[in-house]
């Protein structure tokens, strides 16, 4: 058997029977990118010399965090029993924030490799994506990776995987992305087990967009999977959700660099370029058709990206506001899920209220803004979106505590999630205690194996966004994994807690919390600020209030002495320089009423790291 293809099938004229479309589902550090690298080498798509580690992860940030944010598709030739096949590997994001993107990637495939670290076993997010794959009727190929590791327990985890998807343990493939062991067998297995795509060759063309990436030189590069018909260069195409039309400037496949082709036929996976500059004009999940001969029905499954977590982003230097605005504009070209609008905070100045898919999305965005645009940012505590019904039955949507309505409120509903937590059985008690304290309602519990348990809870998203994951990790010594998905909303007894400095509300610190937690939030924030804000020329009361009711209070005593008593034997310059230093120090202060608050105090008060630090000290 010669694994390398002799006569690789050409795009646009490939019979669907020799096409295999698959993706890889894996947890963050379970070695997906490394395995993908090995497949590229084994199929001769890249030579070892060309091999850049983790070829598919293009952005630095992804490489550093070891996660793939944006998926791409690579066409690889492979020969089995004398027949040349075209294998399309579609890379998928691995994180819960990007569930929708994952679902679209899955919809572009007939099969998925379920890749699990042989030393760690399956994680909650992988499980969630596995369920998605099964719902999409994908063929599952179970694979244990990193079998070269000394700590690997391939027998144990093969049994766990087999049990999970209902196969025999021997059917679980064992590979090492590091050494390449088992990779050729995996490719053979893909050809043998994955069904060929099916579609109608002569029907009006329909292709599903499963990814859309902004490229500085080419504009938006759209990744599609053709279901019916054929897409060819120079034709006019139409986006079925918006009706927008574009001229197709280029179409092709990635192998591993873009290679223009005469088109893409049924079952094929590739890219197209239309010259649009903004990924929002080429949305993931949308259906592409021919403008002249349009399909009647879209492929379905398209959803607008829904931001779940909101946070205010403010430049530390007020003069950086235009830089931040331009930076967000640029990021949005490549991130259809990022939404933002200008926001003004009395405490933090001018910034933007941004909506994110989840906390990781927030972190990545913030990181990129700071790194790629050299910005220094303050982000306010993440919030969720509340639906408030006022007494006059009107509805208000609140994504920012400062928009919380003043009038009489009939009901407040908060977004809920259903969460799946995988944990070694010894931590069940700790997880249950934590979930309860986070207002969670238990929905079920199953043993995946003798010592691994899946717990299911319904929880307010706000609790997840606050510090649930950090707490979960610390209470289970890092063993727990978490996955969640949106699960409707629920009326809750929520209140807005304001923080006042000398009677002036500091909008950046207002929070919407459950009424039972308002007091502890108030005590926490007033205490933090009391420590962080230096003494002023006046006494400064710090209060936490619900409406006009004060629930917690601290005092910063007035400074009593602000004079340098000596003149250092005529060294006037020295005294003046001390004074100038004080002036420079003040530049870094934000004024809240008459109170000077150092930037660092806002940053420290808004970061949850500080809490962690405190907990550790106890």
């Amino acid at each position, binding site marked *: 058997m010669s694994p390398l293809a002799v006569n690789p099938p050409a795009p646009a004229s490939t019979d669907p029977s020799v096409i295999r479309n698959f993706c890889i589902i894996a947890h963050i550090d379970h070695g997906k990118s490394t395995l993908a690298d090995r497949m590229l080498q084994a199929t001769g798509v890249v030579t070892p010399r060309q091999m850049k580690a983790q070829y598919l992860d293009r952005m630095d940030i992804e490489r550093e965090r070891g996660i793939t944010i944006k998926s791409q598709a690579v066409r690889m030739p492979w020969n089995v029993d004398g027949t040349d096949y075209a294998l399309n590997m579609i890379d998928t994001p691995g994180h819960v924030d990007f569930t929708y993107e994952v679902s679209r990637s899955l919809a572009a495939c007939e099969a998925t490799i379920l890749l699990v670290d042989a030393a760690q076993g399956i994680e909650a997010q992988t499980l969630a994506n596995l369920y998605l794959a099964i719902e999409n009727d994908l063929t599952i190929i179970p694979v244990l990776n990193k079998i070269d590791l000394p700590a690997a327990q391939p027998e144990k985890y093969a049994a766990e995987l087999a049990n999970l998807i209902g196969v025999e343990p021997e059917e679980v493939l064992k590979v090492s992305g590091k050494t390449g062991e088992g990779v050729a067998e995996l490719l053979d297995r893909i050809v043998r087990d994955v069904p060929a795509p099916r579609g109608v060759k002569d029907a009006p063309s329909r292709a599903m967009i499963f990814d859309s990436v902004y490229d500085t030189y080419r504009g938006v590069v759209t990744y599609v999977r053709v279901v019916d018909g054929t897409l060819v260069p120079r034709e006019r195409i139409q986006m079925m959700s918006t009706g927008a039309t574009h001229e197709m400037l280029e179409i092709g496949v990635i192998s591993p660099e873009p290679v223009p082709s005469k088109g893409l036929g049924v079952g094929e996976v590739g890219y197209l370029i239309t010259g649009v500059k903004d990924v929002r004009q080429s949305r993931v999940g949308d259906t592409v058709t021919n403008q002249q001969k349009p399909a009647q029905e879209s492929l379905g499954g398209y959803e607008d990206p829904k931001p779940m977590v909101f946070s205010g982003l403010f430049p530390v230097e007020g003069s950086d506001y235009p830089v931040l605005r331009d930076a967000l504009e640029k990021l949005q070209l490549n991130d259809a899920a990022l939404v933002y609008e200008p926001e003004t905070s009395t405490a933090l100045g001018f910034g933007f209220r941004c909506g994110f898919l989840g906390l990781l999305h927030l972190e990545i965005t913030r990181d990129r803004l700071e790194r790629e645009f050299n910005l220094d940012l303050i982000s306010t505590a993440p919030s969720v979106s509340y639906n408030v019904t006022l007494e006059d039955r009107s509805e208000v949507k609140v994504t920012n505590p400062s928009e919380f309505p003043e009038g009489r409120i009939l009901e407040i509903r908060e977004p809920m999630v259903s969460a799946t937590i995988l944990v070694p059985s010894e931590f069940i008690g700790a997880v249950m205690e934590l979930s309860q304290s986070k207002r969670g309602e238990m929905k079920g519990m199953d043993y995946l194996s003798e010592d691994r348990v899946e717990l299911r809870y319904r929880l307010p998203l706000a609790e997840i966004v606050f510090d649930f994951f950090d707490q979960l990790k610390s209470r289970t010594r890092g063993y727990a994994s978490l996955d969640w998905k949106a699960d409707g909303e629920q009326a809750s007894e929520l209140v807005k807690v304001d923080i006042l400095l000398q009677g002036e509300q500091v909008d950046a610190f207002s929070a919407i919390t459950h009424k039972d937690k308002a007091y502890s939030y108030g005590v926490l924030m007033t205490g933090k600020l009391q420590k962080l804000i230096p003494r002023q*020329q*006046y006494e400064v009361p710090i209060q936490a209030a619900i409406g006009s009711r004060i629930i917690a209070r601290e005092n910063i*005593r007035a*400074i*009593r*002495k*602000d*004079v*340098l*008593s*000596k*003149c*250092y*034997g*005529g*060294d*006037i*310059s*020295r*005294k*003046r*320089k001390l*004074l*100038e230093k*004080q*002036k420079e120090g*003040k530049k870094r202060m934000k004024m809240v009423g008459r109170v000077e608050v150092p930037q660092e105090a806002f940053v420290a008060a808004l970061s949850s790291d500080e809490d962690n630090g405190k907990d550790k000290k106890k």
Partner: protein
Amino acid sequence: MPAQPEGDPAPRDGALPASSVARAAERTLSLYVHVPFCAVRCGYCDFNTYTMEQLGDGVSRADYHADAAAEIRFARAVLDAAGAPPRALHSVFFGGGTPTLLPARELAAMLEQAAESFGLAPDAEVTVEANPDSVTAETFDVLAAAGVTRVSFGMQSAVPHVLAVLERTHTPANVPRAVGWAKERGLGTSVDLIYGTPGESPADWRASLEAAIAMAPDHVSAYSLIIEDGTKLAAQIRRGEVPEVDPDDQAEKYVLADGMLRDAGFGWYEVSNWSRAAHGRTAEQNRSAHNLAYWRNQDWWGIGPGAHSHSDGVRWWNIKHPLPYTNRVRAGESPAVGRETLDAQTRYVEHVMLGIRIREGLPVDSLRPEGRRAVAGLIADGWLDGAAAVAGRAVLTDAGRLMADAVTRRLLDW
């Protein structure tokens, strides 16, 4: 020891621009003579001082008076060259270090050189800082005969455990004895106190004030202890061996000092300085003319290693170590290593920063518009005297004295 400020290089010949002496006729000229020697270095001190007698290369403490005299002659030559009119000295101040570590006749010799080079104004104030342990009755005979008018004693505290933290080695009982000797010879007397030393209780501070007042000097300086980087005390605090100084405690002690001194007949004339009528002189006459020259931004020449000078908007400072200092002076070169020429904005900043500290305060009409706008708020906060402001002067209240730097920043709109 703190580094010298950053500035422009000073010319080797020390030449001054004509602008720095253009108004010299209206400005007083003082002389500061730094004596950079101590028997031991105190734990809190960051002044430019050395404890060795021999500094190497043929430079020794014994020759210092002659080298300082050379710089005095050099000073006169530079001022003349710049075109300054001759000015008799308004005040002379021997500071340190420990001036009395030098034999009194050497101090007298330096004063003689000053008188020869510049002349002394008829009522010129001539002060020597004295360590109570390094003087005898005869010291004051020599000083008084040479024309010294005033002695400032480094008392710091009357309480042994406080002196121990400061590493002051003098015997408390020696202070009133030395003050007595000075008074007997008709010399003005001042005692320096330090408050807020770690471990000093309010009762300790009261005891020190009582002891100072009991000596009946005509002048008292009281400075809050400042922990300077690089001192032994700073290191002890960093290592937790000595508690940190507490600004609230220092504020309380300032208030106590001001009250007790007032009751004893002393009135403040600068944030850290009080004087009283005594020995046939008014309280005003017993103020330190030399220190006031600093606060009033007059001209002075600083003689000696590390000394700072000022001539109408040009400030310069000498090289710190006595060895290169001596070599330069002996070679007829300027010992200055850096200088700054103040622009109008900086001069205004200094005008406000210095002037606000003295009892007369600042003329309101010398303030820029933003400063004049700030006055009302400072009166409301109780830091500027309302009646004085109405009369045209920005003057600190008692409470305002403790906030002088905050007041300065607000007057500057910083």
